[in-house]
């Protein structure tokens, strides 16, 4: 409960600041960044295990670690997007919304009861929809927010329906109890399908992905990166817990569901990413494909599954935030968001280009970046059933994804441009955040104890 309390404390502090006003954006932002940093550091200490409120809330070392990853991501976002944040008129509100969503995610990961789970999921979603609308004067932003709120309301409805069916057939909404009571009856399978579909919406698994690209494109980059990294990561964490802990008796049923959806997600995500021009849409589709890889790792309840997914999300935080960070810097200074605008970027902005290239290589899974290890461990976890063709499909998808990641690399390094992005001066804070991301991308893979540590954590 400690992480939640700390976060709530920060939220209240922000509220008071908002009421009291009189603080400049810049100093307020520095204060928030400091608070988030402390929050991140603090999340490693005084973590207790156990249940609260009659098993409604529980926590384990792995859950605490997952929360730390999310904290890290939020801290990095607050650094990377500081140029944009400084200019917004509603800085405290932005962080209020973001931290409320984060609080929702924390509760969600820790929930031991379907009702708490549902409530926290809503808490994690609705503020994000408001954040997506943060560029008030841009129509696209509103459009994205609208799409998001509608689709998430729809998926919540489906989720609730699934929950009610589960309650009807088992008579319980407590997660540990449900797993005892599941017997694989058709009604339960139906309920599982509904719950699964709701997750698929949130994770943007094909064919439930249609909202993703528009929302990503419309939202400010800070929100897009929050959506694609933090939201996705949190949902993936709870998804894996629900599958492994609650629905483990139905393994035979969901194994094939996940295999088929994983293939569809990877293939469709990759194929759509091939033709994107806008860097945000591009990263949106690439993140869909990445979710496909996460599904590969989840697919069979092999002991590696959880560790490799958590590890992958950690790497994904660094790589995707680095990519979004560079995009944010460039978009903020020049307003350019198209891949074609990145042509000849290396000539003018070598530092940004190298960070972007590192991030893309990591997303593509090329050594020595951490993405290589992350992807390989996911495939190893997924391959434990010796379904070679499945791994082969995943591996072939890595080639397609390499093609479009290389497209950006090629634009930055090789293509000529008469009118390249002018040299952008990055503020020290942003530069530091980019270096942290770059360092994470290089080091997380080579420092093997990180993975070993995750592996030892009890879930």
């Amino acid at each position, binding site marked *: 409960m400690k992480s939640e309390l700390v976060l709530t404390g920060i939220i209240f502090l922000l509220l008071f600041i908002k009421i009291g006003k009189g603080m400049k954006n810049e100093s307020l932002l520095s204060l928030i960044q400091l608070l988030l940093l402390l929050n991140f550091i603090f999340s490693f200490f005084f973590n207790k295990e156990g249940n609260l409120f009659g098993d409604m809330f529980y926590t384990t070392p792995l859950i605490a670690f997952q929360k730390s990853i999310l904290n890290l991501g939020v801290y990095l976002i607050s650094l990377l997007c500081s140029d944009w944040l400084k200019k917004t008129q509603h800085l405290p509100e932005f962080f209020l919304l973001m931290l409320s969503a984060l609080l929702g995610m924390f509760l969600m990961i820790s929930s031991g009861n379907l009702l708490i789970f549902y409530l926290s999921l809503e808490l994690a979603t609705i503020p994000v929809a408001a954040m997506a609308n943060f560029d008030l004067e841009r129509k696209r932003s509103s459009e994205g927010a609208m799409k998001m709120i509608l689709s998430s309301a729809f998926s919540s409805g489906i989720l609730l329906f699934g929950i009610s069916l589960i309650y009807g057939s088992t008579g319980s909404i407590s997660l540990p109890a449900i797993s005892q009571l599941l017997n694989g009856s058709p009604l339960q399978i139906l309920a599982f399908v509904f719950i699964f579909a709701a997750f698929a919406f949130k994770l943007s698994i094909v064919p439930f992905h249609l909202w993703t690209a528009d929302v990503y494109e419309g939202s400010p980059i800070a929100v897009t990166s929050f959506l694609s990294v933090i939201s996705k990561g949190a949902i993936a964490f709870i998804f894996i817990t629900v599958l492994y802990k609650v629905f483990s008796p139905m393994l035979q049923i969901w194994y094939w569901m996940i295999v088929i959806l994983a293939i569809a997600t990877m293939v469709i995500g990759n194929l759509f990413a091939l033709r994107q021009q806008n860097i945000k849409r591009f990263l949106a589709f690439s993140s869909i494909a990445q979710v496909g890889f996460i599904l590969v790792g989840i697919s069979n309840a092999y002991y590696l599954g959880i560790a490799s997914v958590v590890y992958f999300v950690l790497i994904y935080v660094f790589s995707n935030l680095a990519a979004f960070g560079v995009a944010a810097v460039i978009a903020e200074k020049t307003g350019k968001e198209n891949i074609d605008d990145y042509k000849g970027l290396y000539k003018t902005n070598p530092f940004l280009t190298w960070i972007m290239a590192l991030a893309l290589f990591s997303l593509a899974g090329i050594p020595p970046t951490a993405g290589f290890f992350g992807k390989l461990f996911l495939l190893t976890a997924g391959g434990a059933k010796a379904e*070679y063709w499945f791994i082969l499909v995943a591996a072939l998808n890595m080639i397609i994804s390499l093609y479009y990641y290389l497209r950006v690399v090629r634009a930055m*390094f090789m293509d000529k441009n008469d009118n390249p992005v002018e040299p952008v001066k990055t503020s020290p804070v942003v530069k530091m955040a980019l270096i942290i991301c770059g360092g994470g991308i290089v080091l997380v893979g080579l420092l093997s104890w990180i993975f070993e540590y995750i592996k030892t954590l009890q879930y």
Partner: protein
Amino acid sequence: MNLLILIGAPLLTALAVLLSRNKQQVKWISLAGSAVQLALAFSLLIAFRQERMAGNNALMLFEQNYKLYESLNINFHFGVDGISVAMILLTSFVVIAGVLVSWNVEKMTKEFYFLLLLLGLGAYGFFISLDLFILFFFLEISVIPKYLLIGIWGSGKKEYSANKLALMLMGGSALILVGMLGIYFTTGYSFDIMTLSKENIPAATQNILFPLLFVGFGVFTALFPLHTWVPDGHSSAPTAGSMFLAGISMKLGGYGCLRVATYLLPEGAKEYANIIIVLSAIAILYGAFATMMQKDLKYINAYSSVSHVGFSLLGIGMLTQTAITGALMQMVSHGVMTALFFAVIGMVYDRTHTRMVADMGGLMKMMPFIATVFFIVGLCSLGLPGFSGFVAEMTVFMGSWQNDDAFHRIATIAAAMSIVVTAVYILRATGKTMMGPVVNEEHLQLGDAKWNEKLAAIILVAGIVAIGIAPGWLNDLLKPAAEEIMNRIAGK
């Protein structure tokens, strides 16, 4: 000898290059670093021979084992046998020559040398790895530097070639990955080559995994019909890039085919040997005939590489000890030879700004040194005794002939016929460009090789002559290792 130095030296050099301030520093640091690597490779050779002389018959020498991902049983396991030593020596030769011939790269010099050194690092790491995962790691490290080298510093349709190369090599890697995981799961979670070499994987599984691994590595070494990245990639790459690609990278594939696919999955190798033979015989003949049609010097050498590398795959497919030794010799020999060839072509191109055979003539008059080297490497390529090509190809043929059935004989004869074709295209290209009348008046102004080019050429010529005149030392290195692989195939 601590093998980690072999990774450490290039890594330190690359980092030093990153930190250096101007182009001059970059070049000298790279040169010093690659000279150190050459010295290290030689001292490794000497240390290895001393150990063997002293009667140390362990399969791998200088083994080191560090835990990396303990729970997945992934370890930094290093060690060398004769094959690795020979390959490391080859790598260090090509690296120093590559650094020398790139002396006048002006565009983004620092990045160029950094990527070049990174490529070398990948190769060193690959050749000393005894853990499949780490081996794969080092194999993949080299893909992106190749892509960038071709795409940024290349010529012609460089973006297309760079993309094609990166994607085809990644495709190969994908197959390797699946095969590797297959081995991992069927053997009770082990990536360690030394452990795996004692396992008996069921033949049915081997028959599934062998093609994945062999074709995967085959892509790297231009296995027909997956060779198509070779001509485009080689001809678009900058000189040093072509040298590294043909000299080192293609050898990674050959080494993997042998050490991973054939050695770990002997039953699979026996099952598919005939297909390998057919494919490599086609590659040898097709490569040779395709070369005859080429007008661009780089394309000539690229297609002839397809043909020459076919010999090493043919040797592997023949599954006799002599043939495998020959295959390995061919890898080393072709590595040095083709690097030299590309270096010379690069030197010619730097002066004449054309690579078209028809636009050149009588260059001997203006640049006697370059022309002499051109002749030497041409003669080596067509298999003249006294140079490495002859020794290697001869050994392959000898080994192939040991299989006394009609199929193997026919394949051997077919492959041997390519030598005639090789002679045709080599002599034609050499004669046209170096001898005869001067085609272009402007060429009369051109000068001969500079010190760096001379040094690079001399180092590589020394390599091919050393193998050609005294192949004994190379044979001593490779034969025991080939014997071990044959023992495993014979089921001993």
